[in-house]
């Protein structure tokens, strides 16, 4: 589809690429990218090092265990502006009257946010490099953990961006996304599951949520080095769902 370029109209993939490039540029123009990346690198590396000196083992499990809670705060900060800012400054009218499909705009923004998240992850690479220098860590385990983290971040970016479009306000979008993120993470905590199960024992809400909703069992399987189809499907379905909802919402908001 992208091979044949008609006049005044970019191909589908090319359109996504152009939107993504602009969006990523906007992160750097407004220095958000630098501030967030530096903050993430300092936080992630220092917390890991603390753990590393305590346990003294050459693996990254401590790092990956820490990430979901850190993402609950970092990802909403990345996604909150994506649609809320366009709405506040009214540039959304400019963007969505260009000859692109709404899905191209959504995908472009998503990929830009994913790119910034990717930069965060690159900032954590000193950890595996250090481990490689100090000993012989299980590389498969580390790679599988990174894949899990990328999927977890990708899913958080998906609902973060959707909530930015729904709320139209950056602060509200941040708070909502953080709450949803917490729900996805906390529903995987043993204590939370136990408390929820205790509320109405017959329904065992906690277990139902843990098994069907929580991100933690899926993410943990990657961290443990198991890449199974069920977990992969979970992430892909949720990411697809949020992107689809985002397109539907924007189409409906044109009134």
């Amino acid at each position: 589809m992208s091979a044949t370029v008609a006049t005044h109209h970019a191909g589908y993939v090319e359109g996504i690429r152009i939107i993504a490039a602009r969006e990523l540029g906007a992160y750097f123009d407004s220095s958000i990218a630098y501030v967030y990346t530096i903050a993430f690198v300092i936080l992630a590396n220092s917390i890991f090092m603390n753990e590393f000196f305590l346990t003294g083992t050459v693996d990254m499990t401590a790092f990956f265990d820490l990430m979901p809670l850190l993402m609950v705060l970092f990802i909403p900060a990345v996604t909150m502006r994506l649609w809320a800012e366009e709405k506040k400054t009214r540039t959304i009218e400019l963007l969505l009257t260009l000859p692109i499909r709404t899905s191209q705009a959504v995908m472009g923004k998503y990929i830009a946010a994913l790119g910034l998240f990717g930069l965060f992850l690159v900032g954590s690479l000193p950890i595996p490099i250090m481990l490689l220098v100090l000993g012989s860590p299980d590389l498969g385990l580390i790679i599988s953990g990174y894949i899990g983290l990328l999927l977890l971040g990708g899913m958080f970016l998906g609902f973060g961006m959707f909530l930015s479009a729904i709320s139209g306000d950056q602060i509200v979008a941040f708070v909502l996304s953080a709450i949803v993120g917490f729900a996805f993470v906390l529903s995987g905590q043993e204590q939370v599951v136990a408390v929820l199960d205790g509320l109405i024992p017959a329904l065992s809400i906690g277990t139902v949520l843990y098994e069907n909703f929580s991100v933690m069992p899926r993410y943990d399987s990657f961290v443990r080095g198991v890449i199974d189809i069920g977990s992969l499907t979970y992430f892909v379905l949720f990411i697809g769902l949020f992107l689809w909802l985002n397109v539907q919402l924007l189409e409906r908001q044109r009134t």
Partner: protein
Amino acid sequence: MTDHQGATTATADPKRAAKEAPKDSGRTDQPVMIDAKDVTKRYGSTLAADRVSFEIRRGEIVGFLGPNGAGKSTVLKTISTWLPPTSGTVEVAGFDVQKDPLAVRQRLGYLPEHNAMYETMRVDRFLRFMGKVRGMSGEHLTKRTNWVVGKCQLEAVLGKRINQCSKGYRQRIGLAASLLHDPQVILLDEPTHGLDPLQVAAFRDFIRELRPNRAILFSSHILAEVMATCERLLIINLGKLLADTTVTELRAVADEKNISLEEAVLEIVRKGGKRT
């Protein structure tokens, strides 16, 4: 003031005005580029546009005149594909805005109300982005960019961020971005807003230069603005199209009643106001 020839009857009657073919002197052989039929837009209980119909042909510059909140922007937003009309249809260059929005957008240059742009982007990068997203590239994009930059006199601000530019520059950046792809249909919502008199004069010359082979519709709430640039004008208030007339016709009405042109327009607006 205009080079207009031969118009006959004044059209102060809104019902007739909306239905009649444009009387803009011998351009009826040109294809219809904007065809609005009974465009209605309802926001809750408010009728922002009420069965607005008109045709604009290639080679026409039409002024869309009305007080603030008359429904000008609403109608322009439906033509631009931004807002779907509650009922009625709009076709741009033969493409329906709802059924074929991409085809419409490719042919359309649109300067929205408030001229919102990506504030933190550099002017040159913003123009490149607007060109690329429209499928332009390489030499063609460079050539077109140089042309709009020259025409809109943007050389001095190309390396600046948009939020560092003055109001006059911003308006011209928006205009440049909307004309980059050489659109057949140009929609400008309050294009002279924030320009000084010299810039307004330059804008008029520029728009007249664009006229051949294009259909241009621009909105304003200032009669002098519209008269200086267009022959034909659409007068709208409270969502209703009150007149589809020419400056010459309006002048004839004004002379006949011995009132000024402004008063003639106000009379049309007031009449329309009573009916709603």
